[in-house]
């Protein structure tokens, strides 16, 4: 039950090592942690959990209405969606069931809506409904002119992706899993992993390496798929924009590709994006002038008033796209190895179902799971605006005045929350990590007021 970020790795043979502490790897670790007899390690190349694709996505809890019917992805998204909604409620992960509208801006898009509604039915989603322009504008009065109609998917929600990943990892660690950060897997042979921090031995291996899953797969002799990173740039608008939009406004997919979406976030901001650019470099997580200009151009059409508000943050993430329409999850029993590849933006939604599926595959590979216990629930600090934050809770402040002492004013983060995050099961190793746990420095001033004070707390001087 340890989290390490440096030093020698334990000289033990694990039952399962999971490579990659993204949302999928953490969910798998959590699922396996239910089996008390298993010795599990989660190894991660970066200095925090959820640092790759998992941190920079559109933060949507999908229904799976538009998955390819009959695919593994469709099943896992459908099942994962239900499980994650329950888990979020139990664990304090902010979720807002705002619903989505696929807005048709031309005849061609309008013509696609009935097909999408039929697809939703095939995916066992029965609440989709086509809206005419009047009802659409009644629901979204700030929508730009010219929309012809929409498909309403009431079950789509927004969620905090950071808290989800952290909750999984926290629960796994509290139930005995080891997490080794800053630990890049360089070579993999039968049961032996050579990492940047030394050697790890394991009886079973799970590859949840996201953007690097194909590389690890090749080292183990498989050429199932190639990851072609697809960059998505996103703009986060000021909280003043939140009242402009009520639903997730999704583009209608057409032959010309997917457009961009406008969505509220659980933190009370509004997202605009993503772009979709194929890039060669698996570290190309920078935004570009052209990308930002394109997003603003698209956003102006969807929600004109949005562009009058300030941008609070700009970020870019890479999605682990492959040439396949489905996840690439494969068991290799002869190697006691399971690949969890090609997990696209639906991976957050599907994570718990993927974890169960992978656990089953590990059993097929000869892993003796033993008894499964119920996990002790976790209660994560609330980062969402739809639920009371510590500064809004007089009983909490009365018990501990540190929750009434605000440090980050834009996001109203108290000193108590920063203290708690620094002392948590999986503490942050950077100011960015602290931001994802508390929102400190994540607001409209980006540290003008609080940056130095937060850094002081992080570095342990005050």
């Amino acid at each position, binding site marked *: 039950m340890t989290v390490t970020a440096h030093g020698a790795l334990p000289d033990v043979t694990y039952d399962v090592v999971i490579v990659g502490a993204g949302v999928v790897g953490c969910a798998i670790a959590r699922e396996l942690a239910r089996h008390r007899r298993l010795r599990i390690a989660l190894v991660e190349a970066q200095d925090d959990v959820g640092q790759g694709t998992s941190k920079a996505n559109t933060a949507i809890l999908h229904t799976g209405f538009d998955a390819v019917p009959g695919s593994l992805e469709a099943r896992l998204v459908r099942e994962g969606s239900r499980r994650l909604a329950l888990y979020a409620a139990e664990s304090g992960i902010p979720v807002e069931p705002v619903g989505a509208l696929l807005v048709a801006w031309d005849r061609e898009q309008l013509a696609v809506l009935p097909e999408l509604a039929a697809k939703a039915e095939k995916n066992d989603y029965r609440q989709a409904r086509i809206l005419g322009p009047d009802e659409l504008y009644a629901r979204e009065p700030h929508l730009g002119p010219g929309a012809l109609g929409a498909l309403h998917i009431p079950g789509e929600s927004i969620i905090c992706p950071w808290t989800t990943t952290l909750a999984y990892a926290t629960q796994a660690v509290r139930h005995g899993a080891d997490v080794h950060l800053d630990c890049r897997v360089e070579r993999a042979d039968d049961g032996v992993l050579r990492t940047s921090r030394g050697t790890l031995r394991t009886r079973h291996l799970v590859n949840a390496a996201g953007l690097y899953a194909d590389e690890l797969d090749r080292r183990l002799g498989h050429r199932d798929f190639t990851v072609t990173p697809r960059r998505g740039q996103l703009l986060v608008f000021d909280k003043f924009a939140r009242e402009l939009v009520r639903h997730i406004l999704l583009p209608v997919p057409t032959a010309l590709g997917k457009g961009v979406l406008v969505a509220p976030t659980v933190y009370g901001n509004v997202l605009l994006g993503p772009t979709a650019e194929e890039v060669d470099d698996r570290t190309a997580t*920078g*935004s570009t002038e052209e990308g930002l200009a394109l997003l603003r151009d698209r956003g102006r059409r969807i929600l004109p008033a949005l562009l009058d508000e300030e941008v609070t943050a700009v970020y870019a993430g890479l999605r682990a796209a492959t040439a396949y329409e489905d996840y690439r999850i494969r068991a290799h029993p002869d190697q006691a190895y399971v690949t969890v590849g090609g997990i696209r933006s639906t991976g957050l939604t599907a994570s718990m179902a993927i974890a169960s599926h992978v656990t089953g595959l590990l059993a097929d590979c000869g892993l003796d799971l033993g008894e499964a216990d119920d996990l002790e629930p976790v209660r994560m600090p609330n980062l969402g605006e739809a639920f009371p934050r510590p500064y*809004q809770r007089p009983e909490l402040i009365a018990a501990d*005045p540190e929750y009434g002492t*605000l440090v980050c004013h834009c996001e109203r983060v108290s000193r108590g929350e920063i203290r708690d995050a620094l002392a948590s099961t999986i503490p942050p190793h950077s100011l960015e990590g602290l931001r994802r746990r508390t929102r400190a420095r994540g607001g409209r001033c980006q540290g003008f007021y609080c940056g*130095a004070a937060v850094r002081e707390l992080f570095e342990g001087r005050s």
Partner: protein
Amino acid sequence: MSRRHVDVLVVGAGPAGLALAARLAAWGVNRVEVLEREQEAGGVPRHCRRREFDGPGFARRYAEAAVRAGAIVRTGVTALGWCEPPALDTVGPAGRETITATAVVLATGARERPRSARLVAGTRPAGVFTTGELQQAVHLYGQYIGHRAVVVGAEAVSYATVGTLLGAGVDVVAMVTDLARHQGDRLKAVNSRLGQRIPLLSGTTVTELRGRGRLTGVALRHRDGRTTTLACDTVVFTGDFVPDHELARRGGLALDTGTRGPAVDGAFRTSREGVFAVGNVLHAVESAAAVAREGVRAARHVRDHLAGASWPPAVPLLVAPPLRWIAPNRLAPATTYDPFVLRTAEFLARPVLTVTQDGRVLHRRRLLTTAVPNRALSLDGRWVGSVDPAGGPVRVTAR
């Protein structure tokens, strides 16, 4: 939640709020309370330290003067939002409290727009600052900054930033401004360029930040379309101030489209009766001394309101490009106006300022100097008596 009444509730213990509170308390106004969300009163001067300006000393003097005069200054207390009737919902270590007031004064100040709001593309490495964060890191906490810095901006605050960086042992590689010339003090600009050998790259835009983990450079585009990269581990975005208008906006106050702060008349009255605004939330930004004087001037009008003075309607005062904004920006009858303060977006050599209402010229004046962006420009208020209170908006143009 507990509820309490005060006569005057000031939000923000910077120079403007403190000076106003001190004056009102000195006049014997019964309960004057200043809320400050930081742990110490004083506002931005707390972390301004220059050879010619002892900010921390200035902040301390104003805070002490307010307390000595009888005002109550409460630090670590945040005004979260409004409730009816004019009242603010607050939180601090002692919990939540609603404070009602006969007069509320917003003195919430201004801040610089950070990199994201300026839409500068690239990665998100460490080493990216605004002046506000940099000054606190250096002067309040003595934190490590970096080795080689690029300063974005070439106005007064940018030159102050250069001083802070050099004092912290950081080399300044260059100053970058997208305008054609610097907008600071001429002596300082000459000293920086020739004395300290810091190149000023004018007509140049920062297009991208580079580096993973830590900043490694900034990409630039010059006026002629050339692009270059400057190696650095630190970049400071200076200037480009915006008012901290959250409370004003959440309170439904009319905002001025130019300043983006609450619109006020010559008596610092906003569009909402009983709510005043003063200091850099009205005009981002003027010096600490200037906003402190403004606080003193505003005190009289707050006192008049406590004594039952009426809250008159006002005519909007607007500007046309290349002027960016003017403050005050509401014209109320029977109100005296100190000189208005304006900003221009372009350099204008000896411009003619013209004030009109419904096509009628109220005032025309040629400035004898060059109007410089990011620097105060003033217009005297003797013409306000000829404004028709029933007429349309009054406009100021520059040519």
